């Protein structure tokens, strides 16, 4: 029982990390039908920014470093859209070009991270290091519980904002009918920029949380989690935010149980087999609907 619970908590905390990054993919896809490949690089870049700030200007202050990192990530997301996506969008060119542009951004960010950070593994600050919480006999690390709680709070706040806030509702409107948003006089470009900023902030939370969980950072973390988060997005149904969250948790919990009861090396094999099976049965993912072509 204790082992079961512990594995479950592992899965849920890892799922939180997948879910946060997955939302970014799904949000932008829902609006532009674009797979924004730069998302995984923002995950990495944010963790590197956190590391750089923490080991210099804001040494020792986790909360302040965290807030500054999120601000930087939000700005980065907005700038990515402004510089690399918007010009293509406004020309009305195909999404394939925007996709390639986002891959370009991803590559550039990864190069910058590699150049400045180097390729070795370095220790990453964590919260309540060595502290464990006894959960019905299961020994779970405090950082895992913090990650789960923070993620739930973020999901709750996001849900509230998209239901009740003007800008949040605006983002939902964009995903329904971009042309109508233009006609209603909504600041469509700014809102699309905001959606990239939101996706990037979530990826930043995810990136910092993951490195805190590992207590270490290396430049390979972005690709590893980025691929998983993207797979989770597709599993849940790309373009559906709740699908990204559910997909993230399902994928991580499966991985966690396979690793816990069977073997670490079977983890990716099983989780991706599950994804493939789900997609064969329902190609649009768990919550995805068939795309309705606008007349």
């Amino acid at each position, binding site marked *: 029982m204790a082992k079961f619970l512990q594995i479950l908590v592992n899965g849920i905390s890892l799922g939180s990390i997948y879910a946060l990054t997955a939302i970014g993919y799904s949000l932008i896809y829902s609006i532009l039908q674009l797979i924004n490949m730069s998302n995984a690089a923002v995950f990495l870049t944010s963790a590197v920014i956190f590391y750089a700030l923490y080991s210099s200007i804001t040494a020792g202050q986790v909360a302040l470093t965290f807030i500054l990192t999120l601000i930087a990530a939000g700005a980065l997301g907005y700038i990515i859209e402004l510089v690399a996506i918007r010009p293509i969008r406004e020309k009305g060119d195909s999404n394939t070009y925007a996709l390639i542009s986002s891959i370009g951004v991803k590559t550039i960010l990864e190069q910058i991270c590699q150049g400045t950070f180097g390729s070795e593994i370095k220790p990453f600050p964590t919260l309540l290091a060595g502290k464990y919480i006894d959960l019905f006999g299961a020994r779970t690390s405090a950082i895992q519980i913090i990650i789960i709680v923070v993620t739930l709070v973020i999901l709750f706040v996001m849900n509230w904002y998209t239901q009740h806030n003007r800008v949040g509702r605006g983002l939902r409107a964009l995903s*329904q009918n971009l042309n109508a948003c*233009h006609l*209603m006089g909504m600041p469509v470009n700014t809102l699309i920029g905001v959606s990239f900023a939101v996706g990037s902030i979530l990826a930043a939370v995810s990136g910092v949380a993951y490195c805190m969980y590992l207590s270490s950072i290396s430049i390979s973390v972005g690709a590893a989690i980025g691929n998983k988060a993207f797979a989770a997005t597709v599993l849940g149904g790309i373009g559906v935010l709740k699908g990204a969250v559910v997909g993230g948790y399902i994928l991580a919990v499966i991985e966690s149980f396979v690793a816990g009861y069977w073997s670490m090396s079977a983890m990716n094999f099983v989780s991706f087999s599950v994804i493939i099976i789900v997609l064969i049965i329902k190609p649009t993912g768990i919550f995805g609907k068939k795309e309705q072509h606008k007349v």
Partner: protein
Amino acid sequence: MLLQVKDLHTYYGNIKALRGVSFYVDEGEILSFIGANGAGKSTLMNTLAGTLKPKQGEIIFQGEDITKMSPRDRVQKGFILCPEGRQIFPKFTVEENLLMGAYTVKDKNLIKQNYNKVFELFPQIKDRQKQLAGTLSGGEQQMLAISRALMSNPHILMLDEPSLGLSPILVEQIFSLIEEINKQGTTILLVEQNAMAALEISNRAYVLETGEISMTGTGKELLENEMVIKSYLGG
């Protein structure tokens, strides 16, 4: 003159959809455009709304050149299009759709005032404020689309085929509501295939043919014109 359009040319790639359209709109008018399928009516409306960019020509609104302005700036100046096919937000409630129409309005009281005003005009949708717009009937969706546009407090309301796909009774109702909106002070620019109904409520009208204006006159004149009767009134 409230709006003046000079020599407007709009293309889709190499396809010429508008070939030099010029016209004007006076304050308080109901002005309509009639024309066959593919004549360029929607192209004209979207060019005026700013979602299509003209290759050539000028759009002057209240003495100001708005040809290069964004759709958002045009809406803020009181210029809004209720598009063909309604384009409501299907996953939003009626209330949320209306709030999107008021996106450019800062004054909360004005939003409330307009909110109540559209329900006076369209009592049918008042009881459906919390219903998802995608589940409304076609007629209700059209009423919602017009209401949503009115939420922006427009000076000129452009309507692209508001009667499309509606039953004859509803068509009649929509046209009398358009007259009512006009009486309350909004200038109307109307595009219709239902030429008869449109001409009956219009002060003036233009006939659009393959991207060019082929004829103009008062609503009454065009209703009596032989060419118009033959081509557009099923005579």
